[in-house]
């Protein structure tokens, strides 16, 4: 059974939740290899993921912000324990 472009793109965008068997995945790979339109679609989806990682994995959270937040979050945690130990 040959897959059509609609099925293949749905498989790609949903991380393979549609048709997850190995044979299905192989058919998807084969289709993408042969179909330049679906190949472009797949590359665009990969580029979107890479851009999102670049967007949020850049060191936006500077060390000072993290230190301040950590201190605020942990305020009272240590003292609560010390109180319990007393």
């Amino acid at each position, binding site marked *: 059974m040959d897959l059509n472009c609609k099925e293949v793109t749905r498989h790609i965008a949903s*991380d393979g939740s549609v048709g997850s068997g190995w044979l299905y995945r192989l058919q998807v790979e084969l289709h993408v290899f042969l179909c330049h*339109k679906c190949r*472009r679609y797949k590359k665009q989806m990969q580029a979107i993921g890479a851009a999102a990682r670049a967007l*949020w994995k850049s060191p936006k959270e500077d060390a000072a912000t*993290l230190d301040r937040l950590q201190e605020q979050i942990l305020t009272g945690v240590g003292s609560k*324990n010390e109180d319990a130990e007393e």
Partner: protein
Amino acid sequence: MPERIRAGESGAIREVVEAYLQQILRAARGAGLDSQRAEDITQATFAVFIEKASQFEGRSHVRTWLFGILYKKIAEARRGLERDRRADDIEEVVERRFKPDGMWSRPPQPVELYGAEVRGFIEECLEFLPTSQRMAFVLREVEEMTTEEICKILEVTSTNLGVLLYRGRSRLREFLEGKGVEGSHGSQL
């Protein structure tokens, strides 16, 4: 570790905060909150974690538990903020790209954008996605979590997760294509 967390041991709590603070803050920002709100939600997430530490059963990883708390906090915070969205019509938008036999009628166009532009448009487009789609996308693409872990955090089945990712990514791709193709007006959103 679960026992130490359950006992409220300050060393264990500190270790968890140190290990996951950056990830939680990043995900809060990725979910579309501005810096101040992301910090507030992060604090609130850890406050719940510390408060409920004694109930941590250790059946899931502590990270999964933390992100589950974060997701509920974000969903609460965004409930009032969600844009007046039109019904999610992305399925129809994509449907129109194919012929009845499932082959392309309007295939994807080359998108010519610079990296910085793509990142800017992604941020802009994510604003229009429902929280569940945003979180599914961010947890998968940015935090690179497994299907199993994301399903636990969002409390959805793997099939539902597939639908969330499909809709979110499709919306992003349509938006970017609209922005990146000369002559297009990017009117999908």
